[in-house]
């Protein structure tokens, strides 16, 4: 079984007051995500991408259809903790997800909840902190750290639980460009170590780094494929008022002027490479 997450005809509605219609956030969505892959989920505000993320580890339960994590139904109370251990989650706001006022204690929070042996927790915490380059901050207080550093602590807290998959719910949305870059590098490193990554984002330049992109619009899958395949649909993406990466945009404009740039050029590096060799 190589797929970790399997979503079958899932729908999700937010309840509102009795006299008003519930809001349909997700409508009949099916998706499988393979072990060890790096998938980016993109969508506008209100497209349902964050709701989808919270359904992946049982923080929200679908109102229709099923979500399976490693074969466990997220609606099954018996395995909910297995589900959450398998699929860790990093949230948007770095401040609101740290529990403890000491960095290393916060990282230990997850393993402590799992009932891991104290000696092993110590090892896991040290390893997780050094994997996000925050080892020297382990006795500091989170409120003295920058947003990017806090987000790295949050990632370490999830890594220490040894998940097979980490869901990042817009982890860079509240960070400055430098913090954003740090977090993206760490996400790529974790992926290289074999952890499956699902990155929810609205930054296209981050999504390009994934090996699969799923665009969600109005609670449905709008486009799904490799970055090359997805960004080929330049006009479709623009039609739901989403942006494309800067390099794709530039390549498209150059094409309009008669320069034949191949469609698999989607990153800035790729474009620079091509333009340099263009004659």
């Amino acid at each position, binding site marked *: 079984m190589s797929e970790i997450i399997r979503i079958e005809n899932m729908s999700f509605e937010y309840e509102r007051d009795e006299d008003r219609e519930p809001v349909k956030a997700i409508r009949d969505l099916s998706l499988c995500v393979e072990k060890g892959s790096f998938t980016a989920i993109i969508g506008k505000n209100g497209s349902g991408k964050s709701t989808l993320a919270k359904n992946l580890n049982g923080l929200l339960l679908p109102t229709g259809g099923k979500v399976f994590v490693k074969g466990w139904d997220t609606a099954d109370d018996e395995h909910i903790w297995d589900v959450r251990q398998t699929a*860790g989650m990093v949230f948007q706001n770095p401040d609101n997800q740290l529990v*403890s006022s*000491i960095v290393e204690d916060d990282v230990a929070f997850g393993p402590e909840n799992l009932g*891991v042996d104290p000696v092993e927790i110590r090892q896991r915490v040290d390893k997780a902190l050094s994997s996000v380059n925050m080892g020297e901050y382990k006795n500091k207080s989170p409120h003295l750290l920058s947003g990017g550093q806090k987000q790295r602590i949050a990632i370490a807290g999830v890594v220490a639980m040894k998940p097979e998959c980490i869901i990042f719910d817009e982890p860079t949305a509240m960070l400055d460009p430098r913090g954003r870059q740090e977090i993206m590098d760490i996400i790529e490193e974790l992926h290289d170590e074999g952890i499956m990554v699902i990155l929810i984002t609205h930054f296209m330049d981050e999504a390009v780094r994934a090996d699969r992109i799923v665009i969600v619009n109005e609670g449905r899958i709008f486009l799904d494929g490799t970055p090359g395949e997805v960004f080929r649909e330049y006009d479709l993406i623009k039609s739901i008022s989403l942006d494309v990466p800067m390099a794709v945009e530039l390549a498209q404009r150059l094409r309009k002027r008669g320069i034949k740039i191949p469609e698999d050029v989607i990153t800035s590096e790729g474009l620079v490479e091509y333009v340099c060799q263009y004659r």
Partner: protein
Amino acid sequence: MIRDITLGQYYAADSPVHRLDSRVKIAGVLLYIADLFIVDDFIGFGLCAAALCLYVVLSQVPVKFIMRGLKPILLILIMTFCLNIFMVDGRILWQWGFLKVTDEGIYTAVFMAVRLILLIIASSLLTLTTKPIELTDGIEKLMSPLAKIGVPAHDIAMTMSIALRFIPMLLEETDKIMKAQQARGADFESGNILRRAKSLIPILVPLFVSSFRIAQDLAMAMEARCYRGGKGRTRMKEMRLKGVDFLAFFLMLAFLAVVISERVVF
């Protein structure tokens, strides 16, 4: 002003006091408070102050840091001082209208102020030298016998440790809201007390709303990290009492005995 409150803030250092088991430190503060209320003259306070000084030196916390924690309670200190000085009967030293200062009044006022200052310093030293998590672990351990009669010891400790984590954050939030409103012309500094109190309402409402939002986010993050109460939970740092801890506790008890005998003798 908002950053001055040191209560609940940890001062990182590697001193003998920092290394002491938090249970001993909590017991120490409780005993010290008892000491302060047993004492009934300035000789006793001298002893208490000397003991506290020794504790401060051992803790390696800079005095400047401790004094910063006293600033916010300065107002309370002045108020109790004034109340005592004018309200207590005795030999009248100075009188103006209904205001009178008596020798008893001065004595009581100074007495109370000293007691209050020592009390605050001792309790803020507890939080300055003990990581909040150790503190709440200590409280949890001290309360664990009560769990058998239905006291949710773990939950209380968890609630407290989260409160400690979010105090600096809520202060920052308050600062942010105040600045945002000052930028739009809000005035928190002028006017009488009633007006100033009224101008706080637009701060408290958004603060209240945002703390609910934070609580919701945090609850979700904790659930995502498999938090399910105290059951089946292990700890990275297990608490074990060492020889030093027993020694410190013995010294604290001995000091209590000294204070009691001082009161009996003098």
